[in-house]
């Protein structure tokens, strides 16, 4: 039987949309792993993030300032939330908000709010613009890339790397292009949306596999779960996937955690080519949206993170179920316009 633990935990990324944030999956795993005493406080950016309205999952939600507002306004807002809710822990789940959360983690700790996050340095080494260098340093395969600041660099880059070419935004989104015209168009769109530089990466054909991992910050991988995408949306997201049993993937996850001393959850996006080579395409510095599958397969990563955040010694998991599958679905949740009104006008619901 699970003993109820009366923690109050704040969670971001409640946007369970077609490119979903991990928030609801993290909450589901925590509720399953930590019992009924848990109180979940949602932290949202927009009024239509579905998690806000799912009161069975999220007990109360507060709107927080966008990352571009900086760390100060975020801390101020969290102080307000803390006064109301007496937060024990906050788990941010968006790449773009992590910098600020890490920056204020010492202040949060002083308030009694724990975090379990990577450092700014750890965050930086896995950034898209640094990934190839990181791979080279630690003997991990990363497709060759070029960092581009001007569109007229594309022609030479395409000649070096060949087509098809993957043009990637600094933070999110990527396009596979086959001509210079397509490459220029992708460069313009991505640089306007996510800023400069843009990354051009050599295309690798293969099977898309993701690895969800949890590090203790001392070099130990507490959990590593590989998942093959079975159904991929037009945004490249896994809509269905299955856990795999493959020691080379587990070793890769462990090697990354060991090399970085990663603290917290992360996701390695892997391309396995026809020869079985494993290329790291991206490393996301937080739990993936499919993280509930880790709990379903026997390694509840979010619950293990909470235990470590509260100082518990957590031993690395040693087994999980391969062949455990998830299929995502869409559900029209019905609510009243007054709820929308309240979160929009007052910033809390």
């Amino acid at each position, binding site marked *: 039987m699970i003993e109820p633990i009366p923690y109050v935990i704040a969670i971001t990324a409640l946007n369970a949309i077609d490119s979903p944030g991990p928030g609801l999956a993290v909450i589901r795993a925590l509720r399953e792993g930590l019992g009924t005493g848990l109180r979940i406080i949602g932290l949202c950016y927009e009024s239509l993030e579905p998690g806000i309205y799912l009161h069975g999952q999220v007990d109360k939600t507060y709107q927080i300032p966008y990352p571009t507002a900086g760390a100060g306004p975020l801390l101020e807002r969290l102080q307000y939330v803390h006064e109301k809710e007496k937060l024990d822990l906050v788990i941010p789940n968006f790449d773009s908000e992590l910098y600020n959360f890490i920056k204020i983690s010492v202040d949060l700790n002083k308030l009694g709010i724990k975090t379990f996050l990577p450092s700014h340095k750890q965050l930086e080494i896995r950034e898209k613009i640094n990934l190839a260098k990181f791979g080279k340093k630690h003997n991990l395969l990363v497709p060759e890339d070029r960092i581009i600041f001007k569109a007229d660099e594309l022609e030479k880059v395409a000649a070096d790397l060949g087509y098809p070419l993957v043009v990637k935004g600094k933070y999110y989104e990527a396009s596979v292009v086959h001509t210079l015209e397509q490459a220029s168009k992708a460069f313009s769109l991505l640089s306007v949306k996510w800023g400069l530089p843009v990354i051009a990466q050599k295309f690798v054909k293969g*099977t898309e*596999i993701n690895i969800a991992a949890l590090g203790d910050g001392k070099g130990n991988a507490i959990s590593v779960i590989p998942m*093959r995408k*079975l159904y991929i949306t037009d945004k490249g997201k896994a809509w269905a*996937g*299955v*856990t*795999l*049993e*493959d020691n080379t993937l587990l070793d890769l996850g462990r090697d990354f955690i060991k090399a970085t001393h990663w603290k917290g959850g992360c996701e390695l996006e892997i391309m396995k080519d026809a020869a079985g080579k494993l290329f790291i395409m991206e490393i996301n510095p937080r739990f993936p949206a499919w993280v509930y599958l880790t709990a379903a397969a026997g390694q509840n990563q979010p619950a293990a993170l909470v235990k470590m955040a509260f100082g518990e010694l957590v031993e690395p998991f040693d087994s999980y179920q*391969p*062949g455990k599958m998830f299929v995502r679905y869409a559900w029209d949740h019905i609510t009243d316009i007054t709820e929308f009104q309240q979160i929009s006008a007052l910033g809390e619901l």
Partner: protein
Amino acid sequence: MKIKKNIATSENGFIFNPSTGDSFSSNPIGAEILLFMKSGKTSLEIKEIILENYEVEPAQLERDWEDWLLQLKDANLLDL
């Protein structure tokens, strides 16, 4: 030729390779043969069982057997 140890098979012919995430379905005779292979029977033993229970000429069985192994190899299900 042995089938990989971790391959999951079911009586209705579903095959799952947990190393790659690939899944396949086979017909009833394929499912039966896979279960024999999983239980450790040799090619010779399996072929004897088939010849005993099905109306098939030995030469035809040999051809089908080669084809079957090729399919298993292509599907990355054999321990080579």
